[in-house]
């Protein structure tokens, strides 16, 4: 299994769960990233804590990459985005714009992403989130099968 990192994954996953736990028990807020950034936009209320959270999110990734540079991209390896399938002949910027629009629009309409529905929703035993998770994982797996960009 190529680049399978179970221990590193589990530690990182537990930290993500802890982040969600702190926000829930401290502030009664769900750590759904699409919701936190989506509600920075008009008609926005309670902007400040969302900004603080997002700045800290970036700072956390940055700090960890400096402390433990050997773990992967962002550390020793530079981060790269994935290009569209070569055979499709699409320009990279168009691919990025399309995927970005779909992710922003889809998470807004569907009320959540991998963190909000995936981590928090499933932990809350939300039936809505279970349906959302099944749909977005299913469609993403299908998409990768069709594009074959891995």
């Amino acid at each position, binding site marked *: 299994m190529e680049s399978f990192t179970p221990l*590193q*994954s*589990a530690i990182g*996953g*537990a*930290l*993500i*769960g*802890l982040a969600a736990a702190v926000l*829930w028990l*401290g502030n*009664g*807020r769900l750590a759904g*990233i*699409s919701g936190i*950034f*989506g509600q920075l936009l008009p*008609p926005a209320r309670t902007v*400040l804590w969302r900004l*603080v*959270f997002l*700045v*800290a*999110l*970036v700072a956390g*990734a940055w700090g960890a990459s400096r402390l433990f540079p050997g*773990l*992967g*991209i962002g550390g020793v390896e530079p981060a790269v*985005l*994935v290009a569209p399938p070569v055979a499709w002949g699409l320009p990279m*910027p168009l691919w*990025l714009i*399309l*995927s*970005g*629009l*779909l*992710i922003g*629009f*889809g998470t807004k309409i*569907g*009320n959540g992403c*991998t963190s909000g*529905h995936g981590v928090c929703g*499933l*932990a*809350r035993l*939300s039936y809505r989130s279970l*349906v*959302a*998770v099944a*749909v*977005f994982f299913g469609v993403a*797996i299908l998409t*990768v*099968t069709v*594009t074959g*960009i*891995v």
Partner: protein
Amino acid sequence: MTNLRLPYLITAAISGLLFGTGLYVSQMVDPLKVLRFLDFTAIPSGGWDPSLAFVIVPAIAVMFVAVRLGKRRSAPLFDTAFHEPEYKRIDKRLVGGAALFGLGWGMSGICPGPALSLIAFPPAGLWLFLAAMFAGSYFGSLIVPSGHTRRLADAQ
């Protein structure tokens, strides 16, 4: 306002720091690693990377405990109430939104948490991607009925 008090903002900062650290440590900030999980065609050849499952399961488990602990309390530490999602219905908007998100996620290997965390070590094209993601979210907000009560009435 509760949400302007210092303990509230410090809690948000600690949560963000832990989240960003977790995304880097688990390498979910790496679009290719996420795509290697989503690529089920690699299962027969042994090239599949199941790491993402090893990230999300412990994350859910820790949060599950926190949700249980929260049920014993009437309010979180720094606010007057837990902000639970109030929509209960499985509707076209939920399924359609999740499907469109899944399509974008499968194209790029990036979901919103990693997208923003990547600002820490920005790859080429990230700003364009983020601008599109924000624009998409904004277009979405034009379609979802605005105002809490209206959204709730619409969803139930």
